[in-house]
């Protein structure tokens, strides 16, 4: 090949490699960017007076007098709205049947929506559900609700050849000539005074219990459950994995049976996690009966089985990579085999072993399928350590799925879901970062 061609090939090769790296970085940014932006919305947002009121009522947080004064101001701002509503309601009661038929439905919709925006009417009955006892706690949600009040969704079926088209029409049109029209402009211009949005840092999102299936509060039960599950899985996986790795690396030899064993372990690492979940249900709960039904213990055991292959193979490789000269030196000094393994081989293999352990821990923390059948519930209290033996727990991965699909008000609490995703991702990233740092430190110590 000519020099020119060779150089061209070399250059294009490095160009493609650089391009691959750029693409990877870009996709990472595209992935992580929205995740961070949306997720941080759970921690930092414009909270309304309803949020502050809730925090005061439930946790006694905040300055009671200030919050009550602010609530009073908001109530005063809302008063004209309620006056108009009361007036219209009175008219509805006395009006003729036609009028009633025309406006009753629309009015009910309107009062319902305003109830969702501001909470129950002052002085009225206190609703049973917590979510109906307060108005919108977040300004972004309040604005959506406000738009829902101002504009009504309709479907335009005028073109018969097509499906109905969604069109937004001002709700005020429906109440034309009834005296209720000023209400809409009042809401549009005065919502800020009525709700008092203010930038709020809700760092306790991580450590607060959730109320009324995540309508209020934080994600502490989920976070704690995830930590329990990940640590529990490691309690079982670490000793078993390392002992197995030592056996495979130092005692098993190279027979066909051992080869088969190794292959089986490697294949186990590729088994879909849902299969492990079903296995955990069938084996740990139904057969072994280690708990009545789902429990953190059963979930931790299932996750341990899931990560064991990874721990075993990585630890085995790490032990095998220890220079044979260390082993010879220890043996020549009269160390027995187990002594050599314990005092020389394992410490030297520690960086590799540790890395596999922490990465497995990240995996255990993030796995959903294995805990669906064995450990996870959608709503629960934070557990004490001894309760983990018998009780199921909410956990971040499962609850992310739950909030995204099965929750009764998926749209209302997106911010909680995003917050959970960010928390889980950060948790796993922190674990991996810890692995990298620890590995570097131990390597430094080993290399002198």
């Amino acid at each position: 090949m000519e020099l020119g061609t060779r150089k061209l090939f070399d250059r294009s090769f490095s160009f493609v490699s650089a391009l691959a790296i750029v693409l990877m970085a870009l996709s990472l940014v595209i992935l992580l960017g929205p995740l961070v932006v949306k997720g941080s919305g759970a921690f930092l947002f414009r909270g309304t007076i309803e949020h502050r009121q809730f925090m005061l009522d439930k946790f006694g947080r905040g300055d009671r007098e200030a919050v009550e004064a602010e609530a009073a101001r908001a109530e005063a701002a809302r008063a004209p709205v309620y006056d108009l509503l009361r007036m219209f309601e009175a008219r509805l009661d006395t009006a003729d049947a036609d009028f009633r038929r025309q406006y009753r439905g629309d009015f009910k919709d309107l009062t319902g929506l305003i109830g969702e925006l501001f909470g129950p009417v002052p002085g009225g009955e206190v609703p049973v559900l917590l979510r109906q006892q307060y108005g919108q706690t977040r300004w972004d949600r309040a604005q959506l609700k406000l738009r829902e009040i101002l504009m009504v969704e309709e479907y335009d079926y005028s073109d018969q050849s097509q499906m109905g088209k969604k069109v937004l029409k001002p709700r005020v049109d429906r109440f034309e000539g009834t005296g209720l029209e000023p209400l809409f402009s009042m809401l549009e211009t005065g919502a800020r005074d009525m709700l008092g949005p203010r930038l709020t840092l809700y760092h306790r999102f991580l450590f607060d219990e959730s109320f009324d299936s995540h309508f209020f509060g934080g994600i502490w039960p989920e976070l704690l459950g995830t930590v329990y599950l990940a640590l529990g899985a490691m309690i079982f996986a670490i000793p078993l994995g390392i002992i197995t790795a030592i056996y495979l690396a130092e005692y098993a030899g190279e027979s066909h049976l051992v080869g088969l064993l190794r292959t089986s372990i490697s294949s186990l690492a590729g088994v879909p996690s849902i299969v492990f979940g079903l296995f955990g249900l069938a084996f740990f709960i139904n057969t072994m009966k280690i708990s009545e039904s789902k429990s953190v213990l059963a979930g931790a055991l299932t996750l341990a089985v899931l990560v064991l292959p990874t721990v075993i193979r990585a630890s085995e490789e790490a032990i095998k990579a220890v220079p044979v000269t260390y082993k010879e030196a220890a043996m020549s000094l009269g160390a027995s085999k187990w002594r050599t393994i314990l005092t020389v081989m394992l410490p030297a293999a520690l960086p590799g072993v540790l890395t596999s352990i922490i990465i497995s821990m990240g995996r255990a923390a993030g796995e959903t399928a294995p805990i669906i059948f064995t450990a996870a519930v959608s709503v629960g209290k934070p557990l004490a350590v001894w309760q983990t033996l018998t009780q199921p727990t909410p956990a971040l991965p499962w609850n992310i799925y739950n909030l995204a699909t099965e929750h009764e008000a998926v749209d209302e609490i997106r911010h909680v879901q995003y917050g959970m995703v960010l928390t889980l991702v950060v948790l796993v990233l922190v674990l991996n970062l810890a692995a990298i740092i620890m590995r570097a430190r131990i390597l430094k110590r080993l290399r002198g």
Partner: protein
Amino acid sequence: MGGENAPPNTEDAVIASDENSNAPLARPAPRSRRPGTEAGGEPLIRAKDFSVFYRTKAAVDKVTFDIEARKVTAIIGPSGCGKSTYLRAINRMNDLIPGCGTSGMLSLEAQPLYEPNVDVVALRKMVGMVFQKPNPFPKSVFDNVAFGPRIHGQAAGERLAEIVERSLRRAALFDEVKDRLGDNALGLSGGQQQRLCIARAIAVDPKILLMDEPASALDPRSTARIEDLIGELRGDYTIIIVTHNMQQAARVSDMTAFFYEGRLVEFGSTDEIFTKPREKETEDYITGRFG
């Protein structure tokens, strides 16, 4: 398979816990004495028709010779002549190699080494080894030297520190590392690392030191220091050194054995071997005609 006495797997079961550094290798053996006090000048290590096999290939082929206590014995010969294998047979390091077997007789203080009741841990405590490449553990200088005494439960605390210091002094390393005992041993220079390995071997108070080309990975200055060290240790320990370097053998040893293709060609005092060898092969090797 040629091994009549396949190496018994005793090392897994045996745990060295006895305080006595002169523990007998095997239960029926008499209590051993300090080196050099053997009754009637009985040689320390005797090999009689001793062979070592890797699978079916004899790496050491029917070797017969005796090594006396408190002398420096050099084993020379070209690569692959079996000299390292013979050396590693003395502390049974060949047991680590799968498919390795022996025949004939090799004894230490009249105790055959390849018998089922031999306590390998006690044997290796008595027979220290220094390897070709310096192989300190990735631990501190102190922990390296203290490794042996610790696993044998010989000492702890201040007594351990004494042993470490004495061993480092004996290996002519103490002054260089006394301020860095806590530092990682891998930070030392190659020559220092090798002397550390010698100190580590000395720390368990062995009678015999096996050295497998201890200076071949070192620069000339470090080599000279190792050779000086061997001269200083002579008399206290029985040293058996395998070397490629014939000048080195001539400089440091009292006795020399020449191995060729697994056979012992000639064994005698170093002076004789290097000045008037009996065998043609020895002469050819020493004068550089092959090897």
